[in-house]
């Protein structure tokens, strides 16, 4: 593995031009920061859209000043039309799932820290790496451009169920050009993820430095590795599905449209396609995607918490095996999204069982975290608060999975706000908390400055309490039969739920505003933060052994590090205190070496 790394480094000199350094950079660290910047931008857009949706759901006829600027026909008198609500919802979900939850914890942090944590100078395919970011950026532009083209973005939801998505403008505003742009954007996004995944897998397998066995990789590196294996297989299915969807629009094919569809009294010129085919292809990607969003968070949070607990997890390997089990099982459970889809009811039972079984590795992960807290010397800082908050959110979002894993209870909860509450807690908020934990933890290494702890804690408290105030009531709404994806609650039985929606709206606005504290902290600390030392958290893994902070272009200077220990030698008496770094050659008598 050394030879390859060295060979690559020889061809990989530090760039000198502005463009080579900051724009079309081959440096994984710059690419990681670019991904982070894109995710930040996408998160702000996605959150802005959710504010508009929430205001509309609380007070349907309220005029929102300036709303007409976003749309040609969607906001007469600044009041949102039903179709514009659905368009905002679709864009909110697509932006958040793809450009934030997939991009930040996996592509951003993974790019920056995976090569450093394995002890390499860069990824093995830097050009692919650069391309992966730029195609993702293009994908984002293509998606957002749909606001300004034709009748606006698609209104079909991030799942884009056919045949609504495949029929063209006749299906509704945005269902023509809007869908084509959506599918093109996601197809392009898939290319970026495939290139990224290839790089991550090769980095992990081939670029490890001397002494860095697989078991000596930190949990964050393992999580990125497992995620990239999922990404490689899941996005490889979504991309052709998107291509087929585009063909249904532009080439007159009928992959996802069946015969005898009548819209506006016109028989549609399609025949022979299958509606359920889209659902199978989409969810074969869609369910692993949930784990693509959350597994990196599990790794990051474990990494952050271990450092702040000053002890390793109860078992490094059990956590890795559990994350691996989640990845494998994630492909076998996707049918639980389709219990009432018209799929054979026997299949529902077949999909229900692995869905229930997947709670076992999830529970093992949670119990390992909890058991590891026992006897810890827990440091409370913003990073560890978000890490602990992640565990709390993951538990809360996880237990509601029991209801949705069973077809019989799903009859009552499918397509209700219960589902929305479930996935927002478990893959939305939890994954965001993972991103925040990673940011507060790694920011000093990435920018050489500390983030402000007081602002960080204010951000945490408002986010933690706020996220529960927003998303817990979603479950109650769902129990009461409140259907999701409604722009207004016209059925009689939903009327009495509107006050609860208004409460959620207020909570969402406050919680969202709290994120601006984070944004301010990020920008302020970037330029004015206290200078950071090389290893401010007294941590052990390789990112804290770089000769400078931030790391130099080739990460470790002239000589790649050599690794002597497992990643988490805390709670041992070493020369540096209660920890021994992976690069430290000193012998340990009370170590936790498992390898």
């Amino acid at each position: 593995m050394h030879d390859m790394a060295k060979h690559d480094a020889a061809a990989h000199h530090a760039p000198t031009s502005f463009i080579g350094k900051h724009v079309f950079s081959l440096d994984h660290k710059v690419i990681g920061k670019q991904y982070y910047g894109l995710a930040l931008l996408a998160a702000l857009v996605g959150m802005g859209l959710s504010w508009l949706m929430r205001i509309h759901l609380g007070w349907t006829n309220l005029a929102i000043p300036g709303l007409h600027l976003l749309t040609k026909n969607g906001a007469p008198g600044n009041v949102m039309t039903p179709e514009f609500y659905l368009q905002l919802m679709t864009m909110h979900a697509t932006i958040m799932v793809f450009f934030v939850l997939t991009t930040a914890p996996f592509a951003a942090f993974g790019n920056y820290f995976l090569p450093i944590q394995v002890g390499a100078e860069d990824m093995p395919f830097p050009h692919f790496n650069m391309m992966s970011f730029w195609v993702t950026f293009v994908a984002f532009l293509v998606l957002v451009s749909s606001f300004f083209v034709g009748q606006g973005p698609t209104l079909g939801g991030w799942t884009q169920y056919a045949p609504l998505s495949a029929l063209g403008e006749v299906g509704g505003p945005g269902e023509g050009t809007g869908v084509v742009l959506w599918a093109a954007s996601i197809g392009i996004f898939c290319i970026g993820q495939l290139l990224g995944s290839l790089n991550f897998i090769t980095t992990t397998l081939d670029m490890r430095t001397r002494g860095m066995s697989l078991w000596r990789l930190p949990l964050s590196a393992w999580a990125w590795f497992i995620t990239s294996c999922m990404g490689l297989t899941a996005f490889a299915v979504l991309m052709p599905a998107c291509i087929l969807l585009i063909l249904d629009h532009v080439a007159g094919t009928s992959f996802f449209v069946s015969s005898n569809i009548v819209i506006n009294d016109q028989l549609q010129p399609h025949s022979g396609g299958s509606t359920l085919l889209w659902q199978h292809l989409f969810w074969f990607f869609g369910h692993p995607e949930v784990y693509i969003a959350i597994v990196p968070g599990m790794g990051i949070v474990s990494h952050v918490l271990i450092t702040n607990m000053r002890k390793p997890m109860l078992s490094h390997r059990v956590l890795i095996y559990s994350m691996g089990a989640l990845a494998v099982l994630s492909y076998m459970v996707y049918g639980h999204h389709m219990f009432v889809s018209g799929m054979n009811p026997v299949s529902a039972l077949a999909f229900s069982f692995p869905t229930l079984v997947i709670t076992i590795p999830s529970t093992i992960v949670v119990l390992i975290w909890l058991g590891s807290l026992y006897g810890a010397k827990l440091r409370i800082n913003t990073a560890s608060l978000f890490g602990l908050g992640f565990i709390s959110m993951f538990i809360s979002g996880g237990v509601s999975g029991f209801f949705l894993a069973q077809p019989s209870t799903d009859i009552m909860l499918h397509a209700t706000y219960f589902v929305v509450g479930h996935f927002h807690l478990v893959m939305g908020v939890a994954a965001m908390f993972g991103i925040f934990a990673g940011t507060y933890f790694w920011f000093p290494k990435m920018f050489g400055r500390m983030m402000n702890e007081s602002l960080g804690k204010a951000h945490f408290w408002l986010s933690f309490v706020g996220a529960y105030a927003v998303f817990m009531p979603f479950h109650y709404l769902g129990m009461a039969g409140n259907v999701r994806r409604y722009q207004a609650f016209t059925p009689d039985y939903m009327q009495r739920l509107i006050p609860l929606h208004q409460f959620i709206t207020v909570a969402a606005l406050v919680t969202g505003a709290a994120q601006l504290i984070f944004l301010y902290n990020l920008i302020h600390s970037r330029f004015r933060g206290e200078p950071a030392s090389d290893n401010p958290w007294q941590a052990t893994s390789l990112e804290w052994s770089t000769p400078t902070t931030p790391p130099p272009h080739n990460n470790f200077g002239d000589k790649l590090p050599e690794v002597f220990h497992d990643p988490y030698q805390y709670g041992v008496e070493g020369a540096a205190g209660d920890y021994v770094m992976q690069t430290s050659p000193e012998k340990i008598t009370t170590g936790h070496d498992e390898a």
Partner: protein
Amino acid sequence: MAKFFAVTIIAIAILSAIPILRHTWWMAEDISTHGAPIDEQMSETMAEAGISFLASQFILAFFIWKFSNPKPGDKVKNFPGGAKAMVWAAVLLVGTEVLALGVFGVKAWANVYFTPPAADAMPIQVQAGQFAFYFRYPGPDGKFGPIHPDHISEATQNFYGLDTDHDPDSKDDIVTAQMAVPVNREIHLFMHTKDVGHSFFVPELRVQQDFVPGLDLSLHFTATKIGKYEIVCTQLCGLGHYNMKAYLSVMSQQDFDNWLKQQAALQ
């Protein structure tokens, strides 16, 4: 701060559980013959998920309270059982939970989907379309006339695309915008869509089933309580999705017969 955090977690956990325990917002009353096992399954799942939720949050809070802010001389300790205890706990506790829920859940599901409708169940057809449901009763001949998609016309109110001039079975078919059923009589509901995907959800009836273009699906149920309930669409079908709804009236047999006569006269 750690202690405050621990208290916050416990407060949030308890506050979250209160509306569930008090059923402040809860499922509508069940009016079906097959719903009881579903409700039972829901309660059992709620009990198991609720206990897991509260126990895990309490342990998290307790450990944060107890093990934060260490004194300088403190040494880290390991959980006595180690990782093995955790793996066994997860496998046994959750495994049992999963098996129990899985096995009992199959019964509730089978009740709905694996039990065929009685031979004398009353056939009703429902057609979904952007953004309304239309129902069809077969009339005195007991037969539904064939559907001709190219005849479907909202303009002439031929919602089902019937050809009454050539198809004798269609002549006495009764098409309505609202649904009515006699109480305590099994209904065999034949479902199809004329355009995109939709869904048929009546919370009180404990049924939810998608309409799938290209597939003819069916449901069967018996409503046990006279009253007026709402049918709503739960599958995103376009801009009017939120407003796609109809009423289901559960009537005495006599009221139903009268209603059907009135509807027949309107055709």
